[in-house]
């Protein structure tokens, strides 16, 4: 007596017998069995289609297939680690201006990260997260239109920078001063900008994924030829919202690109403890979605992948999953010291052998569009600019105290008005206990 085992059963202690690695394709594929027993039957009989409403393109088989994995999805790259284009037909057809802008922004991001990280260490801002090692994601921003809405996680400030968010605006948010677009209500790096179509960062992980599908649905309803770009990490992809989002984006046909930065770590949790399957890309096909895996340290591969994904999303109103493989060089945040769970040598090795900045720079140099002098000049100018912004932001006062009660709703409710009046009264009566000199004056 044997029990019926579904084709999706994962082999556990029992080694799989009649399994040949099956190429993972979005459309139906014929399965090939190398089992001697099944050889005769599969050669002569015609394959009978399954008609159950949930089976889609399956066929009946007398081979008990216990699949442990699909063929791992290849990782697309254009440049090698020395910035050399491996297949000449993939040579990027871009202008010098376009290419150097990407690299300059990567450099600026780097400089800004270093300075703001130090600022946190000195107690000047409360928190910060760097983008070290992942700067190539800026290539994805370069493939988007300005009106494509971005829903980020927290390590995509480079996309905002690419779109024109100024150093002042970054600093003002980190310092929560009166010029902060967020009115000082968020932790640092939780940027948001309507003008730049960058949705305000929200701390709970993966909640932005179903929301991105929703925003994409709204874009589809409006008829605009845009899409939504949604970033997240491989750790966030373990959240329930990830699965709910991909499924509903596929079933509701939303023009959204899900871009996973697989940087190998979720704080201290390494990727091989985060999941057991073939990364995040393998899940996309499971949800019926177009899927791409790229070398996340290769600006041009990331750029091309996003370009193609955008075409699918905008023209076909279908979601696309991109998994960008990369390595998180920095700590998770200023609250983390990664030397507690990985060797400094490992980090140094990555910086030396596969560095997104170096690869892009070498490619630019090979085109004669960059050199040492330009590098030093840009780094130096940006450093000065960052320090200047930084100093200015630090000096600015905080938002007015009364702002505390605004925007809970569109208009203040009776209880909020009451509380506001009460606070104003307290401040007026006991100014020695309520020092408001650091806040801008009430209007």
């Amino acid at each position, binding site marked *: 007596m044997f029990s019926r085992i579904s084709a999706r059963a994962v082999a556990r202690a029992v080694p799989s017998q009649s399994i040949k690695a099956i190429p993972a394709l979005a459309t139906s594929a014929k399965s090939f069995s190398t089992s001697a027993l099944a050889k005769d039957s599969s050669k002569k009989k015609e394959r009978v289609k399954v008609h159950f409403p949930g089976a889609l393109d399956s066929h009946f088989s007398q081979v008990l297939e216990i699949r442990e994995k699909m063929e791992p999805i290849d990782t697309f790259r254009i440049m090698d680690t020395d910035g050399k284009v491996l297949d000449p037909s993939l040579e990027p057809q871009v202008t010098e201006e376009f290419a150097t802008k990407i690299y300059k922004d990567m450099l600026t991001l780097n400089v800004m990260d270093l300075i703001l990280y130090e600022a946190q260490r000195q107690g000047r801002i409360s928190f910060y997260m760097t983008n070290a090692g992942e700067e190539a994601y800026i290539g994805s921003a370069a493939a988007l239109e300005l009106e494509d809405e971005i829903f980020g996680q927290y390590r995509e400030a480079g996309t905002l920078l690419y779109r024109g968010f100024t150093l002042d605006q970054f600093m003002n948010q980190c310092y929560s001063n009166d010029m902060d677009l967020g009115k000082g209500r968020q932790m640092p790096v939780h940027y948001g900008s309507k003008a730049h179509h960058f949705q305000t960062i929200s701390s709970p992980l993966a909640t932005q994924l179903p929301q991105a599908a929703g925003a994409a649905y709204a874009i589809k309803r409006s008829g605009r030829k845009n899409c939504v770009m949604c970033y997240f990490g491989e750790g966030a992809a373990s959240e329930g919202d990830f699965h709910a989002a991909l499924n509903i984006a596929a079933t509701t046909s939303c023009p959204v690109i899900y871009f996973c930065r697989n940087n190998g770590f979720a704080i201290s949790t390494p990727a091989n403890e985060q999941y057991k399957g073939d990364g995040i890309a393998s899940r996309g096909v499971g949800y019926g979605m177009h899927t791409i895996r790229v070398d996340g340290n290769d600006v041009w591969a990331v750029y091309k992948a996003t370009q193609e994904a955008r075409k699918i999303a905008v023209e076909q109103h279908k979601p696309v999953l991109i998994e960008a493989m990369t390595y998180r060089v920095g700590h998770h945040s200023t609250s983390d010291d990664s030397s507690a769970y990985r060797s400094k040598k490992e980090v140094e090795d990555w910086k030396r052998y596969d560095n997104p900045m170096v690869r892009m720079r070498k490619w630019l140099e090979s085109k004669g569009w960059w050199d040492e002098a330009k590098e030093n000049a840009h780094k130096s100018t940006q450093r000065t600019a960052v320090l200047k912004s930084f100093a200015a932001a630090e000096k600015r006062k905080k938002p007015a105290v009364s702002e505390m009660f605004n925007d809970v709703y569109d208009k203040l409710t*009776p209880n909020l008005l009451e509380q506001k009046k009460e606070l104003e009264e307290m401040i007026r009566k006991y100014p020695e206990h309520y020092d408001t000199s650091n806040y801008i004056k009430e209007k």
Partner: protein
Amino acid sequence: MSSVLRKAAVVSIPSVRQALTRSNPILATSLLAKRSYNSKNGVEMTVRDALNSALEEEMQADDKVYLMGEEVGQYNGAYKVSKGLLDKFGPKRVIDTPITESGFCGLAVGSAFAGLKPVCEFMTWNFAMQAIDQIVNSAAKTHYMSGGNVTCPITFRGPNGAASGVAAQHSQCFAAWYGSVPGLKVVSPWNSEDAKGLLKAAIRDPNPVVVLENELMYGVSFPMSEAALSKDFVVEIGKAKIEKEGSDITIVAHSRSVGFALEAAQLLEKEGICKAEVINLRSIRPLDIDTIIKSVKKTNRLVTVEGGWPQYGVGSEICAQIMESEAFDHLDAPVVRITGADIPTPYAQNLETLAFPDTDVISRVIKRTLQQKIGAK
């Protein structure tokens, strides 16, 4: 055709309601249905049809408004609240979703951020716990945390609280949970007018609004005034309604409990015991404490009634706010809270009935509290 009107045949009789509540909502509707439009007598409408009208009218008026949830389209709604809407507005405006509360709620929230006006239906508010992060951390807080730059004009709705014979995981009341969240507005309609007016107000409101309906009320008919039948009828969010005026004691209730409170008030008046003033909260947040304070200053006694659990509940909040206000000095006796039993709702019918307050419980408690005076033993 917007409204399905019922002649005043069987209205709010507990035994009939009790008998019907265990059966299929469709059966309940058909048993009560005598489809006749009579403009001379009062026009009656079930809560279900009032909600249906509200949805239809708002979807008609603004094409940004759309409905999404499980079974809302082809099935006409798990409780038939969205009956006929898919046929009228098509699959772009009425969306059937896979079983993923966090998925479709998140999608709805994101679409609201992007400018649409979603009505996100939860089959019951119990299931919304799977999406509560999207409701609280995203919908409620984003306008504030984005510095006023991102709005979320979303309406969440679904049946809340006691049902019948569906056990604890389908019977919890969430009024206190959502009522505590700044950034949300929370409404809890009792009758058809409440249902229509509050849902319309919720959909028109630019803030995220939680609409706590009640499954047992869906099939109950109520008279609808001329004004309530209009396409622009809204009930102001944050304002309670005095359903019955009185002088001896104030009863504050919301949702289904309002019906029981009114019956208790009738009973007590008939028995010559007291004239109770019954306040229908209508909104949980903002809480119309001013109406309650005004009433307490008149009657000097207060009783709150709710189906939810006692600890940290709606009654607890009213007690605290009354104590903090000038009404405190007008109380002749401590405020009494009448609530659901502090247990997960039982399945067995006899136990389930005992787990929620009804007319009998309210009358008994009021008789008891009228004997009391502060300081006396």
